[in-house]
């Protein structure tokens, strides 16, 4: 009985969910049923039908086509932002936790200062300097997420550095840089996979908030977040304009979270076999 439970727990729908979204995003890049930006005032507020799967919005734009197009933008922007934050936070956190001392205190101060400001406000400030652009938005999001990654990695490293295998690595003559890359960082993978999926979720939402404020992706490119905020105004006439982008975001986040869990198990040698 226990064996079946173990085998079942190995199966995770995460990769399938994420894979299906990626596939749709790729399709959206080359083909959509309608031009996502074509206005069709004859079919405003059209409910979902066979012709227009997810209905149309207040300008008569086909929601299904917009969601297909938006998938690649949302995934790319959030994914790149999370990856940048992961890279920066992991390196800084590992260095701070490993060396401690003044370096640690300086970095902690910097990260706490970033954390002290609300994420949106910080992003607004950065975008005010750089001007609205996709690259600027990605950078702003990366900076907002870095402190979270930093703190998680740093606390993991603080306990790791007391482990004897780190001392064994020093005794073998390894440089600190090698020890950090070879022994310390791989052992932070478990908390990082969970954290990055959580961050990906908030990245999708932050992107939508920034786009809503007109600071991120230009309005002619539909993103899921922007569609959600557009649809809010016409919720009474066309609830599907909110429901379908919302469902798309939930579907992606659910997939990413499940995928993160199975990724963590898959990367952990102890869970294999």
């Amino acid at each position: 009985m226990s064996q079946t439970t173990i085998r079942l727990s190995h199966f995770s729908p995460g990769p399938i969910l994420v894979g299906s979204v990626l596939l749709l995003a790729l399709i959206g890049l080359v083909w959509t049923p309608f031009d996502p930006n074509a206005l069709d005032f004859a079919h405003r507020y059209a409910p979902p039908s066979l012709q227009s799967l997810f209905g149309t919005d207040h300008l008569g734009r086909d929601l299904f086509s917009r969601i297909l197009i938006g998938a690649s933008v949302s995934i790319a922007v959030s994914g790149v932002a999370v990856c940048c934050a992961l890279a920066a936070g992991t390196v800084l956190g590992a260095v701070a936790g490993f060396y401690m001392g003044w370096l640690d205190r300086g970095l902690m101060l910097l990260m706490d200062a970033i954390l002290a400001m609300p994420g949106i406000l910080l992003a607004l400030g950065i975008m005010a300097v750089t001007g609205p652009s996709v690259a600027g938005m990605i950078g702003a999001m990366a900076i907002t997420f870095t402190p979270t990654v930093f703190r998680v990695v740093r606390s993991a490293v603080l306990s790791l550095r007391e482990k004897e295998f780190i001392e064994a690595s020093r005794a073998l003559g390894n440089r600190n840089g090698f020890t950090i890359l070879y022994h310390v960082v791989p052992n932070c993978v478990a908390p990082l996979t969970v954290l990055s999926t959580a961050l990906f979720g908030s990245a999708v939402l932050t992107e939508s908030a920034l786009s809503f404020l007109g600071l991120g992706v230009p309005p002619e490119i539909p993103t899921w977040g922007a569609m959600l905020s557009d649809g809010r105004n016409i919720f009474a006439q066309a609830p599907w304009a909110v429901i379908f982008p919302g469902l798309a975001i939930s579907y992606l986040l659910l997939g990413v979270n499940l995928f993160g869990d199975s990724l963590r198990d898959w990367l952990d040698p102890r869970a294999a076999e």
Partner: protein
Amino acid sequence: MNRAAMQKTNLRHQSDKPLLQIADLGVSFPGVGEVVRDLGLALYPGEAFGIVGESGSGKSMLARAVMQLLPKPGKITSGRILFKGTDLANLKPGDMRRVRGSGIGMVFQEPMTSLNPSMTIGAQITEGLRTQGECSRQALAPRIHAMLERVRIADPEGCLKKYPHEFSGGMRQRILLASVLLMQPDLLIADEPTTALDAVIQKEVLEIMSEVTRDLGVALMLISHDLGAVGAYTERLMVMRKGELVEEGATSDILLRPQHPYTVALIEALPSREKSWRRDIPAASGPLVEVENLRVVFERKSFLPWAKPTCTEALKGVSLTVGRSETVAVVGESGSGKTTLGRAILRLIDHVEGDIRVAGEDVYALSAERLLALRRQMQIVFQDPYSSLDPRRRIGEIVSEGLRHVPDVTRAEYRDRARQALAEVDLSAEYLGRFPHQLSGGQRQRVCIARALIMKPKLIVADEPVSALDITVQAKILELMKRLQVDHGFAYLFISHDLGVVEQIADRVIVMQAGRIVEHGARDMIFDQPRHPYTRLLLKAVPDLHRSADASYRIGTRAYSQPTAAPDGMVFDWAEDGNDSGGAGGAARLIEVADGHFVSCRPGLAAS
């Protein structure tokens, strides 16, 4: 003091009804299988009963089954546990709660985590008593006082207001004992109560536990992996292996005439001097390691930048030498600085004062390149085989990691060299692709040794390499270490708190206390004629097991009849009554009392 000696025959067993009777007990975990199988035992009122077994023998699961505190998926699959005639296995949770505490009390292994750190001792002690229905603080106070005094807590009134972190491990274990006994149980289960403690403290706690339970007429079930400890404090003994009963009987009978081969193996695995290895140490061509007046101070910076950092002096001027192919053991309790000493020699500590020379080179003055070359000659084996291997690397990668710094070894040779190193520690090549978690503790320690061995070192610092292992595994690892030393001729700096192991392996012994050396000399000198009172205290704390001529075994404690005499005009810098002068402000020095036998003393006041 010695219960086994005091009550040689227990005739009352035939007349009394057993307090706890276990019959055909089976405990199993889904997916793991049976951890306790067909186990039966009878424990009589007021008796001290020992359960001995290695890890995985099911001894803790047995205790937890009795308390109905089995970890979650575990289940009692068969048998009965009769406590005063009621079957605990079928008791409702509410009724079981009444048995716990007032019927059966339990003392756990880890004193650091078994008391709640956010509650005062007083609150934790009264917490248990309240559930028994005694509410008035006034009525309880004298009882609590008396009990704390019984377990030799010096200031019971003050103790109640303190928090657990203010006490040492031994004190906490005594407080726990007091709080459990205050519930007036009929049976006390102590699951490895002293495993986490130093030898001297261990003896103290076991003696108090044994004495108080005897005075109060409480039956004691003492569970341990340590045959010596259990043997000295119990009347009857049971040996368990893999969930099954191996042998049961009077303690003295089992130790004198073990019947089962496993019991014999267990007793024979205990380290003893008779198993020490004699070998030829090559004629001295200068010592390998020379340490002179080593001082290590750990600074802890205060939160406030202007405040002075708190300093802890881990080593206060230590000098020693290790010859080539020699085994030097460093003995001391936790906090004596023995681990720091080993790490300082390997330059794993950044700031030291004094000189450390390995093979003639000053370890702390070397350039990075020369240090790398020297590092190959000195390697370390750690205590905890679970944290000394990177859980995410394969055994092959772990063993061959050091080869990166050996010139003229190509990557293609790594695997071969790793295979050779594993073969030397008796592990086959199939382990190369495994992960550390797939290995047992003993196998992991073999991997640690292979990792050191692949560098072809001249010195191996072994920091408690066998203290985390089961006794039979420990014997095998010691055997392996001995063979490797004979084959390769390296020197060991063997750091240990276990005097039994030290007696078996050491050529010379260094006894450390509070960051300094109190006595050092040849092994036989230290064990047969210890001069320093601290050394004697340490030696008296460990049970001494010897094989007699007729293939039986004898556990005794060492006794030293003559009072220790300091050399002329000197007094010892340490006394057992707690008058620790801590090196007497630097006035203490090592005096040679016999050939190569040094004792730490300071100039005597009376003589001057």
